[in-house]
């Protein structure tokens, strides 16, 4: 049995105190402080029985220092985060902050990803990853640009335990999230699965299926279209350009006095841009996407489907913060969370969103699926690039199928992890694609 553990740490207090029981292998970390902020959901199983997590501050010589851990809640107007926690030591002194992850007997721990956030100033930072017992696995200096959360992916496994240290004088910096994998000693840690199309599938806590790390790409869909010539051709680039002419007409003020505000629509050059084969496929309806899944399942002898709304929430890491009694539509916008952190905007080019005064990126249109950064589970483009179709309707009996995440022409509202949109099952949209899940025993 493999247990995948991902911990999103938002408060030291939470580490020490609250663990709530949840489904089979999952443990939930609840957020204690930050009452007026939305609790960011965690995933995972039975952490206290399998892993000890502790935090301390060391001085230059490596001796523990008594210090208060404070939460920084500084309202920067455009700050990356006003929620990350100040885990540094006394002011003005060089010190080392350390988080220790010690697995219980019979388990090995893998540190997959961690996210560090700063408030201000670019500065140097020394990071060190040690195995319990003193063996140094990694030791390097990195430079942090202002207001940029960064994600490290050390991918180290140990049965004894791991200690992650960072040495800095800057207090306005903190660890905001970690993703950890716990596996029984007799098993190999989970490795992502790659299918015949080259799509990678990751394990996501809470989800009973493996989730593709990227959206379905143009080349994947082309393979499907090649074998099924009868399907609708709207996804094709040629049709795309035709369609964009229609769209352009729609933007001309004289023809549409009520909609002609070019500042509110996509730019003309945007819609003429061509997609590469690695771009996510768009202009596919919900029905097309399901046909794709059926075709791929038949081809590989496995079961592929669209993500359910719940699975998508698991992938974004917010599933446990949502009320399962509500319909997807009712859940919309209730949890304030972005996959890159708590505040808008993200780091430049780390997501592909609509350009406006708060956010700029280099992608006027869809971008290659792996061009932007991943979240802690290694998934690309949840918040940006294209919006993704899900399996369920917005509510029981609704016309609309759930559309999740943001896209190249949405602004911050849709980039929040909990926002939903709706699309009738036969409609197509140039900023909506889809992501697939693989039903697998490994996920169970």
């Amino acid at each position, binding site marked *: 049995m493999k247990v995948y553990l991902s911990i999103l740490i938002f408060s030291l207090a939470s580490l020490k105190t609250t663990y709530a029981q949840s489904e089979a292998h999952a443990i939930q970390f609840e957020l204690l402080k930050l009452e007026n902020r939305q609790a960011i959901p965690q995933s995972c199983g039975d952490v206290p029985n399998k892993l000890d997590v502790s935090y301390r501050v060391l001085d230059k010589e490596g001796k523990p220092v008594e210090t208060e851990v404070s939460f920084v809640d500084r309202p920067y107007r455009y700050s990356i985060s006003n929620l990350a926690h100040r885990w540094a030591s006394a002011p003005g002194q060089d010190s080392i902050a350390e988080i220790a992850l010690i697995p219980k007997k019979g388990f090995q721990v893998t540190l997959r990803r961690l996210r560090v956030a700063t408030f201000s100033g670019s500065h140097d930072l020394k990071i060190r990853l040690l195995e319990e017992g003193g063996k140094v696995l990694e030791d390097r200096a990195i430079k942090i640009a202002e207001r940029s959360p960064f994600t490290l992916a050390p991918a180290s496994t140990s049965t004894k335990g791991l200690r992650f240290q960072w040495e800095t004088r800057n207090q306005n910096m903190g660890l905001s999230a970690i993703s950890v994998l716990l596996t029984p000693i007799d098993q190999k840690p989970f490795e992502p699965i790659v299918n015949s199309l080259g799509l990678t599938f990751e394990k996501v806590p809470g989800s009973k299926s493996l989730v593709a790390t990227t959206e379905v790409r143009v080349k994947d869909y082309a393979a499907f279209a090649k074998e099924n010539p009868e399907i609708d051709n709207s996804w094709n680039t040629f049709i795309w350009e035709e369609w964009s002419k229609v769209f352009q007409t729609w933007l001309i003020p004289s023809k549409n006095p009520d909609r002609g505000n070019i500042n509110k629509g996509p730019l003309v050059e945007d819609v003429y841009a061509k997609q590469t084969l690695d771009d996510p496929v768009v202009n596919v309806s919900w029905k097309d996407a399901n046909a794709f899944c059926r075709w791929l399942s038949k081809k590989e002898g496995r079961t592929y489907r669209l993500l359910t709304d719940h699975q998508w929430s698991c992938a974004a890491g917010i599933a446990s913060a949502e009320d399962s009694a509500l*319909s997807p539509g009712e859940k919309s916008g209730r949890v304030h969370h972005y996959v890159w952190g708590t505040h808008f905007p993200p780091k430049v080019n780390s997501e592909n969103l609509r350009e406006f005064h708060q956010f700029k990126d280099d992608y006027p249109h869809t971008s290659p699926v792996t061009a932007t950064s991943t979240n802690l589970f290694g998934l690309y483009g949840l918040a940006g690039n294209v919006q993704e179709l899900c399996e369920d309707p917005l509510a029981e009996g*609704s016309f609309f199928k759930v559309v999740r995440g943001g896209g190249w022409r949405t602004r911050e509202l849709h980039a929040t992890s909990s926002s939903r949109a709706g699309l009738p099952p036969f409609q197509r949209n140039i900023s909506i694609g889809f992501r697939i899940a693989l039903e697998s025993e490994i996920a169970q």
Partner: protein
Amino acid sequence: MRSELQFYDGLPRPSVGCERRPWKAIVRLVVIGVLLPASVQAELKSDVATHLLKKHCIECHNADKQEGGVNFEQLLTTELWDNQQVWSAAVDKVRSGEMPPEKSELTDKHRADLLSSLDAALIEAGETRRRTVGRVPLRRLTPEEYEYTLRDLLHLEHLYVKQNLPDQPTRGFFDQSFSNRAAAQTVSPAGIHEYVKVAEHAINMAGVFGEKPTRNRFVLTHGGFSHFKIPVGEHASYVGNTANRWLGMKLAPGERSNGGYSGWYRFHLKTQSIRFNEHAHVFEPFNHPIYSQLSTRTVDDQKVNTAVLISQPHRMTVQDGLMYIGRGNLMMSFLSQNDTGHKRWGPGVLFDEKESWLEGPIIDEWPPASYRSLYDNLPNCNFWDAKKKWNAGPSKMPEKRWHPRGDLRLEHARHNDQKMANYVVVSQKPEKDARRLLTTFMTRAFRRPVKPEEVDSYYELAQPGIEANIPFQDAIKPAYLAVLSSSEFLFLDEQPGKLNDFALANRLSYFLWRSMPDEALFEIAKSGKLHEPAVLETQVDRMLADERAERFIESFANDWLQVDKVQAMPGTQNAWLAGSMKHETYRFLREMLRGDHDVVNLIDSDFVVVDDKMAHYYGIEGVAGPEFRLVRLPAGSRRGGLMTQASVLDVTSEDSKTNPILRGAWVVRKIMGVHIPPPPPLPPQEEVPEEERPRTMREEIARHGTVRSCRDCHSKFDTVGFALEEFGPKGQAREFYPNKEKNKGKEVRVSLIYGAGSHRQWLSDERVETAGETHNGKSFEDVAGLKRILRQDEEHFARHLTSMLMAFATGENVQYSDRRDIDQIMAAQPGKKTLRSLILGVIQSRAFQEK
């Protein structure tokens, strides 16, 4: 005269003597009733009074000085009745000791002598007036009453004509009298044309011919402003929130949503609230319900709000209801409480077209009651179909002739069916039928039995048409028009002295229903028992329980409190809240009537009558749904009573700021019943340097004290209005004055509109001032204190309310000699007084039962 007459109805008219036209009577009555002054001479009998007046009053109130505008030199030489208001004010001032001022020496004995002498003279004058001319001059139906009467007479539930009638009542803020005050009414010959036009319109509306329309189901289709709509699937479409713009929903089949027939329809709409994201071109969930207003246009293009559609979020929900659909399309407008309206693609409503429909018309009886009110049991048939069949028989088919003024027909066809123009009312014995119909119609319209001679004179108008064998409905129409614009219809038939039972029935029903008596009341009047107190009381209770009593409540509230002047809040596009504000007052008065509450509750009550919107506005929790209901107020609440209702606070404010002076004047006049004359024209103002101008309301009020002509009146009410300062210009509770500049001062978020979220406001540091003093020198700290003071003088308020009711009931303000009637009403009810008991008291008073 003759050419004018042809203009009235435009009908071809053979030689009928115009001397017998009823218009002449109107003019005659007008002259007698309105233009001639009362020929009553009631002199001051007592030399003592004249002597005392000359000794103590004339020093200031003479032709030269004319202090306060009063000149006793002149008053003593003119008829007492002509200036009875000045005289009664003088009596009041002498009695209260206000006059003469202290320096004058009027001994108690002389004062008593003077008072008794004046009192006797005024009462004598009043009695003489009652005996000879009557207390109330000839009284005409107000436009409102005319409309209601036509509705009841012709059984046309949805007739809206009052705005087309002449002599619209205009009420200024300082107007103390009611819109039905006879002495203020005028009739001009030119105005009569308008009555004829309106009557013709109503008769066209009432005559609905043809077969009984079948009940159809009309499906919602795309239409109207298509660029506000987005199709969603085969059967659903989205209508974006367009900030209260009207949207046409064209319904199949045909041009009109009701397929051509006005009437009641059942609507069944499956909707959901949702939002369209214009950036991503996708729909997204919207978490609030959206209220829309379904409405239709009546034949005369009056907007009528008939139903509220509530679209719930997340799920399609069905709403059923009944609405009356007149001419044209079913309309829908968003009561945009959720959106500021500047976004084209704000939240909107998603319709399931497959499951949204309109079914009707729902017709219980055919031909409808309106047809029977004009043509009774006469059949009608399609002219062209029947012609062949008919001509084969013994009698000749009436000739179908197109009317010289075709627009009448067009009008006719427009509101019903094009085909209707082809229908004729069939009468085998037209003359007999015409007389029979006219007798019934005139009895109802004149609200009294009619004599055969009278019928003859009106039949003469129908005769030429009947002789010319034109369709029956066209032949009899001139007679009907003449009835509906005659003096007997337009004026209340009252004779000096005690009213007969028919006149009493009229007065009663125009008081409580604003319309003609119904059949039951008419029958009782016919039996001659109406004047018996027990019968009268039973009838009053029956009438108050009737739906038509709402008309009394609304008219009375509009006239007394000017609630109808409530305007929609600027900037929020929320016409709906304004509607709720008005209705709160109406429903409050209705609750006073139905619940038989003590009239003190009008000053201060421990309950309010609110719907969800008003409850939210007042900060009362736990009220859901658009129905108005009685809600008990928590202890210490500032609301309760009339004064603190948002409608009243709104009409006493300027656009966006409060004016304590206006509010003070309102409270003093409307609640305390103190007479305050309209402000005199301002004397030419000197340019005041910037630094000397008053900065606050208190400073401005202090200026009033320095000017004599201001002080006399303003001292009575200037600071009273401060009690209401804790409510903003739209009646919202507040603690601080708003900051004059935006973005400065303390920023708060306020949520006034139910379901709409909140908006920002900037407050200054200045706390609202609420302390003040009443005209009789009692000081208060806040509105609760003012209410306490007013409650102490409960008796006075009840008396004031009674006199308002009496003025409204009789069509004449309460005069000095009527005070005895009020005294009797008050004396008969020593304990608890309710609105019902006061109404009953007024009805049983002498002033009501005599002209």
